[in-house]
């Protein structure tokens, strides 16, 4: 997957400036949606009794996550360095089941931590099926952005935000192994 161009970064920053006022609502809706639409993700939040969209810990964590996204926008020029401590937190706290690991059929590099569709190492295109929460969450963030900002969330903005969230997820995965 290509890295973010200067134009991508400018588009992300400009769009974020328009939507950041609603960041908390976006986060709450996206996380709540993810738990309903992708029930397998509930396994990572089994420590909360209530996983419905009106649950207080779900709402709070949605806000926390969007705070992380907001922070990532400010660190967009070096996401890996900027998200280092968050990556360590996710790596050692999430402990994703390694049975979910898949490998790229041509270069054998693990796909588990990679973004959809293109192996970072050999550019082989493939489908990525395992449950990787940041990636699934990214999809739900995009859905919520489309709902809340139907005019502003143009295809051009969509592609930049998709690339940004993918880069963010990659930076978060940096410390997994």
């Amino acid at each position, binding site marked *: 997957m290509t890295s973010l161009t200067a134009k991508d970064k400018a588009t992300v920053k400009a769009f974020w400036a328009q939507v950041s006022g609603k960041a908390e609502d976006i986060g709450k809706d996206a996380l*709540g*949606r993810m738990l*309903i*639409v992708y029930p397998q993700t509930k396994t990572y939040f089994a420590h909360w009794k209530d996983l419905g*969209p009106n649950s207080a810990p779900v709402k709070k964590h949605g806000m926390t996550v969007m705070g992380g996204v907001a922070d990532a926008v400010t660190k967009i020029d070096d996401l890996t360095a900027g998200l280092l401590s968050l990556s360590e937190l996710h790596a050692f706290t999430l402990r994703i089941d390694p049975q979910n690991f898949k490998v790229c059929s041509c270069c054998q590099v693990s796909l588990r931590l990679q973004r959809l*569709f293109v192996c970072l190492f050999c550019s082989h*295109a*493939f*489908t990525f099926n395992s449950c990787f929460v940041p990636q699934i969450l990214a*999809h739900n963030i*995009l*859905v919520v952005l*489309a*709902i809340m900002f*139907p005019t502003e*969330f143009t*295809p*051009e903005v*969509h*592609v930049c935000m*998709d690339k940004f969230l993918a880069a963010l997820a990659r930076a978060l995965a940096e410390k997994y192994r």
Partner: protein
Amino acid sequence: MVEWTEQERSIINGIFANLDYDDVGAKALCRCLIVYPWTQRYFGAFGNLYNAEAIKTNPNIAAHGVKILHGLDRAVKNMDNIKATYAELSVLHSEKLHVDPDNFKLLSDCLTIVIAARLGSSFTPETQAAWQKFLAVVVSALGRQYH
């Protein structure tokens, strides 16, 4: 065999009953070609796809998007047998059109985004779940006859 609840059937039928095919179909395909530019490889004969503006104003793309969306009508009418309903279409995409079936998921994600933008807050999590389940079954059926 896919099980559908009454609520899921109602949600899917409801969305299609009120669907503006001309708008949603065109927008979904355009978005797919812009967000996942490698999908443009299947549209070499469709004219100017040089940039986002060209794609958005290309009448061939718009017409094809509408055609694709109408292609979903048969799945809506045959929700209990989508796999058989799309067997022939799957063969077509494999043998004649040579479309990598991974691309079906890309288009279905873009369709979800466009529908979400249209329906706004009535695209509730439950609606999204039913919609995505429907599209996942369609995508699976379309990829079924590849070998």
